[in-house]
């Protein structure tokens, strides 16, 4: 009763049908956020005004917003894909670091290649780096029954310390005054696409990835099977689908998507690997996917919303003295209001479906 069951529903209707509750959630989250700001003795109107000015006020601000949106789309897709297969991927942050790491390796150590070969290779490396880290969690689950809920979280810490080791040790840039690697070759950097801003080709890669996410889940047999496993793994097994194989595949792709976020940050913005290069994009992906209801369009839109929050936060802190961390409060409230609003759906459904209360099976 509490989950959406009809898998034949097209993604378009799925995306737009439930737009109302996220919008209400955003509205209430901003409202309650304002109360929190007021409670801190600061001015919420001034805060929000500067949040908007800082994120959408001019071309440069919009460019920055899209720069922040890009990794959020990747990590949002990561959480959503795993969720569609019935898995909880809390490891996007670690997968992001591993993707950034492998993309850096290809970006630095492969030299003399033309851009149209080097760049795709580096992007692919980012995907594989994250994907392998994702597969590790799937393997621990399938082979040893270790819940991916915990292992993915633990693997985050391992990946972050691993990158910290690399940039202070073996991959450190000579002469070694800073804990960072040398810059990746120019031929492995994502070119800028909007003059005067930092907006780079990564955004287009992210949009393409959204399309791939859609095609995979709704247009391929394997994707269809993945969704069936996600809805009811026992029924899937009965129908001859192998849930274990699907777990490997979806954790590989989910990890790969998160790895793309890391690749995107390194090849598009930072151009070198250093410690703590992600400000928590991996965890934000959970909120993005949830607000976007695990649909392609939804993830794009909620990615932009969280991009706005992130890029406007600096201006908000500078001009209105409201700590950047307030946007975390707003994000958390958005999630809570989204899941909270399901109580209304629940009441509505009960009215219509009271008779079919037992019909929880998969209808595909």
């Amino acid at each position, binding site marked *: *009763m*509490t989950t959406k069951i009809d898998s034949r529903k097209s993604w378009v209707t799925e995306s737009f049908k439930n737009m109302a509750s996220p919008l209400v959630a955003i509205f209430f989250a901003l409202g309650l956020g304002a109360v*929190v700001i007021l409670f*801190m*003795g600061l001015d919420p109107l001034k805060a929000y005004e500067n949040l908007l000015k800082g994120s959408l006020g001019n071309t440069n601000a919009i460019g920055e917003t899209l720069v922040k949106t890009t990794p959020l789309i990747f990590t949002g897709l990561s959480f959503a894909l795993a969720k569609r297969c019935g898995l*909880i991927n*809390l490891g996007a942050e670690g997968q992001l670091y591993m993707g950034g790491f492998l993309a850096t390796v290809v970006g630095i150590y492969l030299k003399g290649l033309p851009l149209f070969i080097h760049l795709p290779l580096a992007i692919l490396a980012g995907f594989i780096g994250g994907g392998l880290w994702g597969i590790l969690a799937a393997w*621990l689950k399938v*082979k*040893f*029954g*270790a*819940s991916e*809920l*915990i*292992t993915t*979280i*633990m*693997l985050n*810490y*391992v990946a972050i*310390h*691993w990158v*910290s*080791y690399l940039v*202070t*040790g073996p991959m450190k840039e000579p002469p070694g005054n800073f804990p960072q690697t040398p810059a990746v070759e120019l031929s492995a950097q994502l070119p800028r696409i909007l003059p005067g801003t930092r907006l780079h080709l990564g955004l287009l890669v992210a949009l393409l990835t959204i399309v791939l996410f859609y095609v995979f889940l709704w247009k391929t047999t394997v994707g269809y099977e993945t969704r069936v496993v996600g809805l009811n793994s026992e029924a899937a097994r009965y129908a001859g689908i192998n849930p274990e194989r699907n777990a490997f595949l979806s954790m590989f792709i989910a990890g790969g998507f998160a790895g793309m976020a890391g690749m995107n940050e390194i090849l598009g913005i930072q151009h070198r690997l250093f410690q703590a290069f992600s400000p928590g994009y991996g*965890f934000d992906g*959970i*909120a993005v996917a*949830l607000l976007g209801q695990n649909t392609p369009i939804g993830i794009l839109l909620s990615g932009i919303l969280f991009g706005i929050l992130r890029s406007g936060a600096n201006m908000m802190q500078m001009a209105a003295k409201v*700590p950047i*961390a*307030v*946007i*975390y*409060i*707003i*994000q*958390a*409230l958005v*999630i*809570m209001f989204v*899941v*909270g609003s*399901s*109580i209304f759906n*629940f009441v509505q459904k009960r009215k219509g479906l009271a008779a079919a*209360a037992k019909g929880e099976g998969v209808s595909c």
Partner: protein
Amino acid sequence: MLDVITNFLAADLRTATPILLAALGLVYGERSGIVNIGAEGMMLTGALAGVAGSYFLGNAWFGALAGMFCGALISLIFAYLTITVKADQVVVGAAINILGLGLTTSFARVMFGVNTAPPQIDSFTPVAIPVLAKIPVIGPVLFQQNALVYIALLLVPVAHFILFKTDIGLKVRAVGEHPKACDTVGIDVYKVRYASVLVSGLLSGLAGAYVSLGLLSFFTENMVAGRGFIALAAVIFGKWSPLGALGAALLFGAGDALQFRLQASGTDIPFQFLLMVPYILTILALAGFVGKSQGPAASGVPYSKE
């Protein structure tokens, strides 16, 4: 040599205590069918509330109470969304963690300002228990700790007794195994789950206050640093029992204590690998020791009366 061992064991117990406190609460939540990955956020809230309580009221005990109170408040939000609204427990838990990080970072800035030295506050310092503290090895390890360590250790048998020897404990366990059956015999599933989550919140808050007032005596951004997640792992590793949680917490604490010691001893092992130890230990524990062992049957599944 004996000194080294004594120091190591004492440090182990010190670092294990916040994990143990949070894990004891989580055992109750899990046993009643609630998976709470939000313990990290609850601990963080407890950590700031602890410092704030001690700072404004001038006493570490008030800090501990404030930590418990705020942990409980946050846990009620979690309980409402997961039990009443029946939202996905993992998603709500993740939101609680983000909320905890946002609230504590923002309010710490407002309360204590930026770039200023941490204020002097009352914190928990080791209290030697007369006579007992003089016993070699065991004395310094067990009887020369701060008060919250003693409380945590005392809570282990208490939690065990309540869970396995009383009517309340039976209800908690039954609700986690078969909520529907409980409902038919007149046990209020929602009430039991609310109470269990509340216990998690109280103890997570106390665990957080221990981090900010027992291990250090100030608050820093994100200072709980994954202990909430490790506590959750300790519950699973400890097979959902208070005694098991104690064992698991000591194991994870040992990893942490070992890491500090090796780092200080100036080995050639890069310190990042030592920092990985507790997390890898957790993964190995989940994969090897616990294996396919099952948690409560209704764990993670919202219950709705039909």
